[in-house]
């Protein structure tokens, strides 16, 4: 301690030694800040890494700018598409969804077959070959398979997969494992969550695929890239005009392409989370720092006076104390950047589970690290400067005098509530709190923040459970949903009802449409359901199950916001199949739902609008668990079935991937919240100790026992903690609502909910942290210097 390098000047020696003597407190504050920095770096570096991977991949793979699917068009239309102003390149292809039969999996899976040129690489949406080779044009059953699907089934080049192609079962031979920019995030049509086991993408030579589906000389999908100055809207309008006679289903821009859209939403979310959560943590840290420093400066009052008397200027003394905060913040920031980088590099492995790029390498930019460090220094500086400025401004002569004796009075509690005979020690506790309400309020606020952060962290588990409950037991009450390749006549429902094990059925008509309101539009699927569907229900987050309106369309609240329509407004619905009618439809209502963008109608008005009879495009059904195996086997052989969605597997899948990912974030949030809780509580206990140690030592000299003086100090901490618990829950709700408001996007809308148990766990954790801090502080109480206190002045 005594020997320090000669170049360290005296004030800096004082700084280092003062910090060393309050190392416990400094470490607690640094831990709180480091937690914030860690989250910032971890979230943001992931955001940056994903963004880089995305930009590079889209560029290298020539990811198209506009996509359109249609029923069938002759190949020569290619030239007319190419001639549209603003179009740079055009790629036409055949895309078909089929039912797969994978060895070792009883339930059927969906395969998307995409054609690739017989010779050369796809001009747009290039396929990245991870392993194996390209299919041989002379062998019609050779395919490339998507990496995620291969991984989840342990498939390797040379393995085979059964597929039901145009009514006939064929064995496809996987010759290569591949990736595509269109399926960075691969989700089966009509599903909510990715299921890598049950949805695979396959690339097949154009000639083989065309032959299998009567698409020789034609195509049913087109992708276009645009030249630099092209207008996306004009190109989309041009494409729609050209494709309309061929059953075009409405062109969409890249931003609405399923994978790109989801990735975009995820990135935005990551970015807002990366700002919001660390901002809350760092704000709490700044507050704690401010409180700790204000009190530390109170104890340094006479030292400040001495420094000023010796000729140190206000700015010099102020800077000396601001440096306290900056040293703590630097240690915190550097630790936070290191742990953030470590955590970030592990988190990105999780992203790799459902976002698949050719390379997704973790990258922490020096700019981000510097920003994190600069940000923490700035926040610490702000937290410190108010405290320092106040302390330094006191004239030295005044600071030299001991603080005027504290004005104690009979506490309000005693005055108001006379029968309450407080014990002597309790009276001291209550009066101490009442005498310095601002200080008590600061302690309560600090502890309340700790409660709030922990509460929000834990409540995320409830939020996820609510989403699962809402999605998998309120909305989806069916066991399986069959989707047909083409809409079928209603009598198919009788056939479905006769499949082995089927107990109950409910039909739906799903039709591609473009909804237009003024200049705004969205291309999506309109779902026609029974008036009061009992299997696929429509659930409002506040109102519960909703009956469909007799007339008009019911939209997701989010979709209403996107189109800027409210109940009663008129919307133009362009149906993108069959006779392609365009109808003005009233928005009958908005439903505040949780997932995706939905538009619902009753079946009859939808059929009327389509000018078709009673058709069905999917059937929801419940199953006898004992007959599942036979049901799967039967479904796998029906060519009319494009896909089967199973609730159990979807739920399992959701829990395995999404929930696993969420749980990790939740765990991290909770761990850091616990650090904050402990840091704040320990800090306020230490501060109380340092302020009261003189009084307490004097009491010991007067003959008070250790237990009695402990009660005075710990009693104060206990009372403040008890007050802070409910306040913290209130702040927690505010934080929670704020986070959910930020979280809301086109993919997810979550409600902030917390179970009573969550509140109980939060309180128990904070109480435990308080008790541990109390015990640590109590050990110091036992070592109070009784003699020193009598000799030395303040």
């Amino acid at each position, binding site marked *: 301690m005594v020997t320090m390098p000669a170049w360290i000047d005296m004030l800096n020696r004082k700084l280092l030694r*003062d910090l060393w003597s309050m190392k416990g407190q400094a470490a607690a504050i640094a831990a709180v800040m480091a937690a914030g920095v860690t989250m910032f770096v971890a979230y943001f570096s992931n955001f940056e890494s994903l963004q880089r991977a995305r930009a590079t991949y889209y560029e290298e793979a020539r990811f198209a700018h506009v996509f359109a699917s249609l029923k069938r068009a002759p190949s020569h239309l290619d030239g007319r598409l190419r001639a549209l102003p603003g179009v740079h390149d055009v790629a036409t292809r055949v895309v078909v969804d089929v039912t797969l039969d994978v060895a070792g999996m009883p339930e059927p899976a969906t395969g998307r077959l995409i054609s690739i040129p017989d010779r050369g690489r796809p001009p747009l949406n290039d396929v990245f070959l991870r392993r194996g080779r390209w299919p041989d044009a002379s062998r019609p059953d050779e395919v490339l398979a998507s990496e995620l699907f291969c991984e989840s089934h342990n498939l390797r080049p040379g393995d085979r997969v059964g597929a039901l192609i145009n009514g006939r079962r064929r064995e496809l031979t996987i010759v290569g494992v591949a990736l595509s920019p269109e399926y960075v995030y691969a989700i089966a049509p009509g599903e909510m969550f990715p299921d890598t086991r049950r949805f695979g993408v396959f690339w097949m030579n154009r000639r083989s695929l065309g032959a299998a589906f009567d698409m020789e000389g034609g195509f049913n999908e087109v992708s276009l890239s645009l030249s630099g100055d092209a207008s996306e809207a004009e190109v989309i309008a041009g494409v729609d005009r050209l494709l309309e006679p061929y059953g075009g289903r409405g062109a969409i821009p890249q931003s609405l392409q399923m994978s790109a859209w989801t990735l975009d939403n995820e990135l935005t979310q990551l970015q807002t989370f990366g700002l919001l959560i660390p901002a809350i943590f760092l704000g709490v840290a700044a507050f704690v720092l401010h409180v700790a420093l204000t009190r530390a400066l109170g104890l340094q009052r006479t030292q400040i006076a001495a420094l000023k008397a010796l000729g140190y200027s206000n700015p010099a003394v102020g800077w000396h104390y601001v440096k306290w905060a900056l040293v703590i913040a630097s240690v915190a920031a550097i630790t936070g950047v290191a742990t953030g980088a470590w955590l970030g590099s592990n988190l990105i492995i999780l992203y790799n589970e459902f976002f698949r790029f050719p390379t997704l390498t973790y990258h922490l930019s020096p700019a981000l690290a510097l920003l994190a460090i600069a940000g923490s220094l700035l926040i610490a500086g702000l937290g410190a400067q108010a405290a320092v400025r106040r302390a330094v401004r006191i004239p030295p*002569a005044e600071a030299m005098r001991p603080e005027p004796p504290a004005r104690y009075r009979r506490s309000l509690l005693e005055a108001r509530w006379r029968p309450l005979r407080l014990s002597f020690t309790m009276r001291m506790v209550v009066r101490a709190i009442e005498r310095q309400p601002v200080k008590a309020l600061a302690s309560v606020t600090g502890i309340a923040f700790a409660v709030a952060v922990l509460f929000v962290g834990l409540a995320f588990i409830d939020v996820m459970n609510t989403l699962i409950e809402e999605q998998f037991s309120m909305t989806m009450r069916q066991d399986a949903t069959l989707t047909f390749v083409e809409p079928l006549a209603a009598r198919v429902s009788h056939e479905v009802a006769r499949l082995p094990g089927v107990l109950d059925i409910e039909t739906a008509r799903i039709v591609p449409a473009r909804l237009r309101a003024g200049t705004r539009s969205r291309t999506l699927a309109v779902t026609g359901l029974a008036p009061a569907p009992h299997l696929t229900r429509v659930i409002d987050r506040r109102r519960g199950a909703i009956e469909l309106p007799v007339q008009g369309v019911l939209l997701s609240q989010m979709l209403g916001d996107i189109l800027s329509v409210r109940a009663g407004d008129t919307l133009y619905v362009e149906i993108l199949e069959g006779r392609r009618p365009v109808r003005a439809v009233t928005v009958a209502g908005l439903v505040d739902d949780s997932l995706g963008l939905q538009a619902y109608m009753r079946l009859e008005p939808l059929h009327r609008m389509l000018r078709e009879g009673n058709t069905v495009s999917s059937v929801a059904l419940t199953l006898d668990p004992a007959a599942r195996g036979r049901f799967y086997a039967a479904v796998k052989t029906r060519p009319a079935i494009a896909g089967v969605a199973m609730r159990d597997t979807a739920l399992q899948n959701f829990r395995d991937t999404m929930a696993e990912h969420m749980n990790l974030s939740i765990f991290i949030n909770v761990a850091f919240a616990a650090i904050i809780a402990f840091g704040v509580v320990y800090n306020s206990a230490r501060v109380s100790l340092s302020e009261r140690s003189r009084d307490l030592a004097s009491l010991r000299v007067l003959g008070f026992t250790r237990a009695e003086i402990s009660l005075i100090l710990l009693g104060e901490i206990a009372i403040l903690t008890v007050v802070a618990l409910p306040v913290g829950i209130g702040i927690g709700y505010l934080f929670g609502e704020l986070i959910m408001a930020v979280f809301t996007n086109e993919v997810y809308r979550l409600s902030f909910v917390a179970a009573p148990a969550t509140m109980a766990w939060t309180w128990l954790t904070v109480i435990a942290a308080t008790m541990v801090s109390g015990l640590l502080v109590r050990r110091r109480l036992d070592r109070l210097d009784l003699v020193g206190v009598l000799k030395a002045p303040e």
Partner: protein
Amino acid sequence: MPASAPATLHDPIVRAMPVFTARALTKVYQVGEVRIEALRGVDFDLAPGELVVLLGPSGSGKSTLLNILGGLDLPTTGEVIYADQNLTTATEAALTEYRRFHVGFVFQFYNLIPSLTARENVALVTELVDRPMPPEDALALVGLGHRLNHFPAQLSGGEQQRVAIARAIAKQPSVLLCDEPTGALDITTGVVVLEALERVNRELGTATVVITHNAAIAGMADRVVRLADGRVVGIETHAHKAGARDLQW
């Protein structure tokens, strides 16, 4: 006289000019709910090299006067001239400058920085000025050359006060202001501290003001100014001062 003493003190003209001239000082404070008139019109002069004792009971206003002379506080009315500078109208920065280069303080409760060693506490001041005395020399002058690396908590009260004196003189100030320097000490240690002050005044020629309520200390002064109730109530000049060692209390 050591070579490091300020050359100006030998100049007869400067010597004749007082270090301080304070006129009609009043000071009124509000402490909590109480209004205190600490000074009620005090005149005070200090000549170069002079050792003045301000004597008075608690509450007589002597600390207030010292604080005002030292630029730690401002009077409510009246003015203080140091050399040719009016301290009562000086800015905060000018007062800091004044304290930094011209005044040495010794406080009743030493006010050492507990986290710095004896040598470092002195160096805290010598880092601020241009031609300081080496901290080791300053500590040797007060008889603490052997305790350079001790922290305040490892020193006795008298030793701490001598460190404070060393800290005050190491910057070679024109004036040394001591507020009850022996107030917290017993006789024996008090005498050692006063000897240190006496030696500084004699060897360095630093004009020194010592505040005390202990009349016995008055014997070592060139001049004794008595204060009571915020007013000067008597001035006596000693042709022959007593040595600190001969004081009795």
